[in-house]
């Protein structure tokens, strides 16, 4: 029988190497970047081409964040504070676009508005030879705005609901009109939540690969991916700059979160009466309908159109089954690994809190903060240098392997299993474990018979979340999947790159349906 104290030390011994493994790729990325001679690094980073990449990335981040707020803040206010008809339904519909992976959304936009898209086909008989190109900034901006705004929407909703209605009433009794009160009180109180959401969108945009790659807009992630085989120095340096920018944004998010905890008003104890929209009701409904049409109806309709179109032209659904199975297998493996690995991190953080265990837990979150392309690249570096020879021993032709793919997935998505697992362990009263120990059980038995069963729902939620997110991951799959190992994500990628829209439609629809399941979890945390 082992005591809880001994168990903690033992667990620490297991967790430290795991944390090192999580940190390894990024650490190695920095090492690789440092290997570039300083003069060369300076030349690469300051040449106009590089500066343009940075400029474009920042432009896109700012533009998408602003437009996401312009959509999400009014939508959040309408669904939380007004008497908009069918508020609950609109809330769900306005949240759903979150589950459309950016590259699927971009594919839908291209399939609708691209040069061989639906619009073009319809307009052809009218004599329209060529639509203005959707590729480049506008396409990337539109795709990212439409599929990332729900982050601001959810966070603003939470912010608005957290405002004590008495604040607004106090403002009225102090002689301020409804409009003044909205400006000085409601908006200011919701501002931390709005900016937290906007920063999430900024992070999403900065680290997104799918939309910008599909729209052929040369920002960090796309250039890193394209340059990988040509100029490793550039790819490494750009990745480091990207990681630093991401860290900067994350720092701001943390600051805001901290400030929000401090100045946030007491939780509302009664619901404010909804503001009557009156003659504005139709306009508000039209606004919500427009957003839902663009961000949800249009992509689904486009994919369905191409699916039917493809089936009519002899495509079969059989082609999808192999990629689907591969996607399921790789994601399931990653989810399982994350579920198991999350446990020691979470246990140490909750049951043996100390600066060290806290740091360990934080390190496990690092992977998620990194753009997928960067995680993929780091593993490419590592794999190319050390695994190539190793795999050759086993008769594999390159470093690419299912094992490496699952490892990279796990590093990136471990944090998604940590959150729910931590929450569920926090809910297990330590007294329960102590009682079990006083009843003569060793700590391992207590864990198995008391703690783990109580944590089950949290663990399952975390594992499910990892599974669903992994299904959607594109850049890591592109970089590390064994040659010929096409998954749903890479299938969509290659098919739409070659303008075989019909071939991309079925996997895209399947992905959207599967990831819609994760919405259940998201909407639950909204209420």
């Amino acid at each position, binding site marked *: 029988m082992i005591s809880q104290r001994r168990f903690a030390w033992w667990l620490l011994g297991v967790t430290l190497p795991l944390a090192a493994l999580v940190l390894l790729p990024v650490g190695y990325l920095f090492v690789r970047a440092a290997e570039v001679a300083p003069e060369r690094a300076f030349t690469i980073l300051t040449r106009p081409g590089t500066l343009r990449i940075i400029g474009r990335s920042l432009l896109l981040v700012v533009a998408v964040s602003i437009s996401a707020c312009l959509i999400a803040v009014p939508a959040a206010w309408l669904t939380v504070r007004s008497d908009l008809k069918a508020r609950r339904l609109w809330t769900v519909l306005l949240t759903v676009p979150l589950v459309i992976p950016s590259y699927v959304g971009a594919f839908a936009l291209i399939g609708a508005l691209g040069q061989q898209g639906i619009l073009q086909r319809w307009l052809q008989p009218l004599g329209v030879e060529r639509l203005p190109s959707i590729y480049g900034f506008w396409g990337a901006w539109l795709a990212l705005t439409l599929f990332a705004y729900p982050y601001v929407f959810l966070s603003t909703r939470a912010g608005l609901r957290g405002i004590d209605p008495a604040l607004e*009433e*106090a403002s*009225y*009794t102090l*002689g*301020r009109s*409804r409009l003044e*009160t909205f400006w000085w009180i409601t908006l200011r109180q919701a501002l931390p939540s709005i900016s937290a959401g906007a920063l999430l969108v900024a992070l999403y945009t900065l680290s997104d690969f799918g939309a910008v790659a599909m729209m052929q807009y040369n920002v960090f992630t796309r250039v890193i991916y394209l340059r990988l085989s040509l100029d490793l120095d550039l790819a490494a340096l750009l990745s480091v700059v990207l990681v630093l920018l991401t860290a900067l944004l994350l720092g701001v998010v943390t600051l805001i979160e901290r400030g929000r905890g401090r100045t*946030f008003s007491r939780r509302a104890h009664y619901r404010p009466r909804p503001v009557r929209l009156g003659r504005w009701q139709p306009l508000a409904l039209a606004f919500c309908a427009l957003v839902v049409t663009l961000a949800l109806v249009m992509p689904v309709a486009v994919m369905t159109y191409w699916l039917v179109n493809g089936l009519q032209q002899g495509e079969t659904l059989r082609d999808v089954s192999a990629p689907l199975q591969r996607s399921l297998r790789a994601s399931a493996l990653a989810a399982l690994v994350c579920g198991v690995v999350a446990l020691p991190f979470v246990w140490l953080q909750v049951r043996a809190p100390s600066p060290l265990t806290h740091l360990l837990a934080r390190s496990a979150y690092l992977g998620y903060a990194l753009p997928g392309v960067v995680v993929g690249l780091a593993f490419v570096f590592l794999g190319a240098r050390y695994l190539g020879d190793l795999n050759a021993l086993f008769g594999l032709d390159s470093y690419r392997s299912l094992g490496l793919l699952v490892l990279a997935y796990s590093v990136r998505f471990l944090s998604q299993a940590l959150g729910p697992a931590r929450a569920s362990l926090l809910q297990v009263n330590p007294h329960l474990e102590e009682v079990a120990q006083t009843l003569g059980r060793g700590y391992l038995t207590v864990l198995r018979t008391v703690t783990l069963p109580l944590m089950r729902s949290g663990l399952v939620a975390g594992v499910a979340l990892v599974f669903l997110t992994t299904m959607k991951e594109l850049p890591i799959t592109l970089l590390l999947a064994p040659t010929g190992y096409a998954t749903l994500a890479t299938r969509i990628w290659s098919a739409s790159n070659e303008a075989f829209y019909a071939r991309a439609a079925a996997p895209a629809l399947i992905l959207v349906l599967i990831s819609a399941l994760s919405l259940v979890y998201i909407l639950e945390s909204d209420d």
Partner: protein
Amino acid sequence: MTELPLESTVICRDLRKSFGAVQAVRNVSLALRRGECLALLGPSGCGKTTVLRLIAGLERPDGGAIVINGRTVSDGRVFEPAHRRHVGLVFQDYALFSHMTVAQNVAYGLGRRSDRRERVAAMLALVGLEGLEERYPHELSGGQQQRVALARALAPQPDILLLDEPFSNLDVALRRQVREEVQRILRQAGVSAILVTHDQEEAMSLGDRIALMFDGALHQIGTPRDLYEHPVSRRAAQFMGDSNFVSGQAQGSVAHTILGTVALAQPAQGAVDVLLRPEVLTLDGAENGTRAIVSGQMYLGARQVVWVKLAEEAAVLKVLCGAGARWQTGQVVGVHVTGEGVAFPSTLPQDEL
């Protein structure tokens, strides 16, 4: 309907308000005199806060009228929204704007007045918070937050000040101190005020008059002394303080009870229950008067509470007496009535007497 004096600051006439099937306010009529502090007292859920919110313009009444300073702000046709009523409101949880400093909070209701700065300084001086202008609400203690809320409500010189359970969020130890402070501030500001509370002690100490509400309706209105000494019902009597009831036969200005003949505050006839407050009873060890057995006691320093059980009956009486004498549980004592009682028609069927 009673006639309401015209010189009143606030007049409510037949106010009605329902939330769904719940009638929160039933035909409440009351008047607030100039410079007066009226305590709206009642158990939680009796509709007192709703009356306050109706006066503030935060709820729209289903019926009735509200007149503030001779101006009708709400009746069947008119409804002035809250921001045009010149009514100050101190919320139960203070509702301080957490994103603004103390000074910004106080200045909020002043708009673009030229004397903003002076007014804020004067208000903070009034509530004794000079030097805390730049603090944020979360950096203040509960008592300080409350005074900021008060200063903020008073700053625009409202016609009336409404206070919704202003002390319920404070520690018991702090409550009395803050209460005295608020009383001073209200006097100094010379403002007419309505205070909502469920605490009769608070109502008695701050209210010039008390309006007692039960189940959405106004039950009794009068000075604290009126309500304590001449409650109109058993329920009012019990809500206003500790009550002993003994049954008896009233004959005009006296009633014959188990405790002997008791003088009545108002004449009555027939079978009655007589209210005797704990302080009108006294005990003696000589077993004069009505014999009783001491069943419990509580020493309070300046006073002590003794519970006695009348030997012949099961009723337990609560007696408030000086701290000097020592009583033993089980000791036989004599009970005397040294003040007036209030007679209510008996609740027992006639034939059981």
